[in-house]
């Protein structure tokens, strides 16, 4: 019944809130901060490891000729990375050298607890349950639900609108037409989402969830 009450004054709590509303846990491990972009209102929970230090080493040609900081992880808006998950950009060994490739995660993506993600791209409105492993260079399209304990093999493309599960992952179903739609009825109450307790729906707008994380 906790309706969004007035925001409490920022005491020294679990999260550091940035100007754009990102909430980063003090207990998260972020390496290579300069190579990571967070879109705003994105939550990085405790014990999350963002491997920004693993960035592309190939020289990035820029128009001005100046040295640009390579991006290794870019995360969109209202995305939640839950406790204990590791986000590591995918790498490939070519001519005896390890090359890292930049990883992109979209908006309103929920990454459940204890996941290991090395996808090359995850589009928006994707719900990843707990203990999911996504191997290097996998592409997850929009509106996808990944069931708990799934292992997505390297290079797999998951088409939008599918539900995947298993080890290795295979498409086991489709999300319904109502995926991510809170139905206008959710405002002000609880009651949606997989668990029924939250004020948000899987694949939907995660703003409420982000707001409730303190």
């Amino acid at each position, binding site marked *: 019944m906790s309706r969004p009450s007035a925001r409490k004054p920022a005491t020294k709590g679990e999260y550091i809130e940035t100007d754009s509303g990102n909430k980063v846990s003090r207990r998260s491990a972020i390496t290579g901060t300069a190579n990571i972009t967070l879109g705003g209102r994105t939550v990085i929970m405790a014990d999350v490891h963002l491997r920004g230090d693993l960035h592309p080493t190939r020289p990035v040609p820029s128009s001005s000729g100046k040295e640009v900081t390579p991006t290794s992880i870019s995360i969109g808006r209202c995305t939640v990375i839950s406790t204990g998950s590791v986000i590591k950009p995918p790498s490939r060994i070519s001519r005896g050298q390890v090359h890292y490739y930049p990883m992109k995660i979209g908006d309103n993506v929920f990454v459940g607890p204890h996941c290991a993600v090395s996808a090359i791209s995850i589009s928006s409105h994707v719900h990843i349950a707990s203990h999911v492993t996504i191997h290097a260079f996998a592409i997850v399209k929009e509106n996808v639900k990944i069931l708990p304990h799934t292992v997505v093999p390297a290079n797999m*493309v998951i088409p939008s609108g599918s539900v995947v599960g298993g080890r290795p992952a295979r498409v086991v179903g489709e999300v*319904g*037409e*109502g995926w991510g739609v809170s139905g*206008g*009825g959710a*405002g002000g109450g*609880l009651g949606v989402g997989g668990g*029924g307790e939250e004020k948000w729906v899987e694949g939907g707008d995660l703003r409420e969830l982000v707001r409730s994380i303190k």
Partner: protein
Amino acid sequence: MAQPFPYTYYACDCFDSNTAASASRAAQTPADDEDARTFDPRSPRSNYALYPLEHLLYCEDCQQIRCPRCVIEETLNWYCPSCLFEVPSSVVKSDGNRCTRNCYNCPVCTSPMTVSSLEKPTEPSATGGPYILACPYCHWSTVEIGIEFEKHTGITNQLSRIANGGKTLPTQKERDKERERRKEAEARGGIGGRDILSGSEDSPTRDGEGNAAPPGHDDIFSNLSAFYKAQMQAQTPSNPFSPHDLNFSSPSTYSRIMNLYSSTASKKQKREKPALMREAASALEGLALHDPASDIAAIERIKKEGWASTLSPARKLAQLNPHVRFDSELRPTASLLCTKRGKRCRSCRHILSKPESKITSTRYKIKLLALNHIPRLSLRALSPATTTTTPGPSHPPFNYNALRPGIPIHFLLHLSNPLFDPIRVTLATPSTTPGAIASRITILCPQFDVGANTDVWDDALSSSLSPIAKRSGDAQFEAGKIYDRGRNWTAVVLEVVPGFVTPLGGKRDEADGDVKGGGEVDADLLEIPVFVRIEFEADVSVEERGLGDSRGSKGEKERREEAFWTVLGAGRIVDV
């Protein structure tokens, strides 16, 4: 797909209730008529009626929920789930429902395979090859079946030319030519085309090839299809099918052949009766005789290599050739295509959902969702942590997987209204849950109102008018009173006393109780059937009512009613 607790499933009542299963239940309680019957989530039939709300559509004309069973699907287009290329329907008809690009799945674990290079750094090749298809998950690769590719593109084309072991397979054209050549040779050699039934002897015409191997699956198929083609051409000189349209790998053509058979058999056509088509009689016509030697060879191989070299049923079924037995015969399987589909109401044929046809688009042109028309019910435990205004870490989260029998649990049943009109809700539930473990259910306030789904800002205004139930720490478990309400939602308390898992635990059941309990799957699952009836007054608008009813009724209100069963998954009862 199992959902975490607590969940709500909605029942679509489109199934035929006059079935044996429900009839037998009705026989037990003859007084039950259809309206009075409690929905039983444990009935096997319920598996096909219960859906999460987001999977349901709503037909505004029938004013009814539409589930996947009561809609008609229309395929808009086909695409490959792996390379995301659209495949035109003409290609689907001619080449089948698999990707013809480079998309393959591992025959061992189904993971999508990748093309990798085997180029040695010491001796680089011009093409960067040779290439193989490799599974990134289980590390099976085409090396194990002796297949390598020259180029990294056009895998389908290359694979169709290579047999396991690396031998080159003839193309369709070469097969046709070879067949013609051998037929001619047979005719010259005086061997009657029809008496090759004398076993699978390798005719001396098999010069050049010199292999004693029996014809492969593809050979037999192409021979047989050529034979049928020739037969049909001989049969109907004025062929109704143009020759290029005759593709024997498409099921539609087969059905047309079947039609042809039946139409010639039926005596509607009074022309001279065509001669009966004969069946394939030689290997060149696609006749495959069973060779016992192959069985003996297979047995010998199993003796030598053990069961490990044979295929599991799942792997075997995933193969294009269903007759393979050993892992050395595996072939990578081309990815099955996916479809984008529109949906129509089965009874009135109105479009309920229609996605944009572009593969990359995730938008819908039309989407009539049930969750915009029927209230959303959600359940959660009313634990001390949620009643207090300051949820602290001191309260552990409620464990839905360990409900203790005999101890009353209070759940909050939350109902939110997506409609723009206020609704009056009546809930009904059986006093005990059906099934072996009878849990006692009480809805403290079964009848209440839910506000309209008006603009969010109205909430602030109206809240000052209608006093919202206090949210003090005191539990308000008063019967007949709602627990809390907001703009378009109302919450009531549901009291549950979980039953005992073991019948010994003081459960005095009838004799049949023992039979029902015990071994039943998910007997400990606490699922509560709740019947929901909503009444509201809706505007009679032109769009909604159609032209027939629209005359002069502008601004009028009409009473509407909606009723459906839901099942609330509250958790699992532990055995104590």
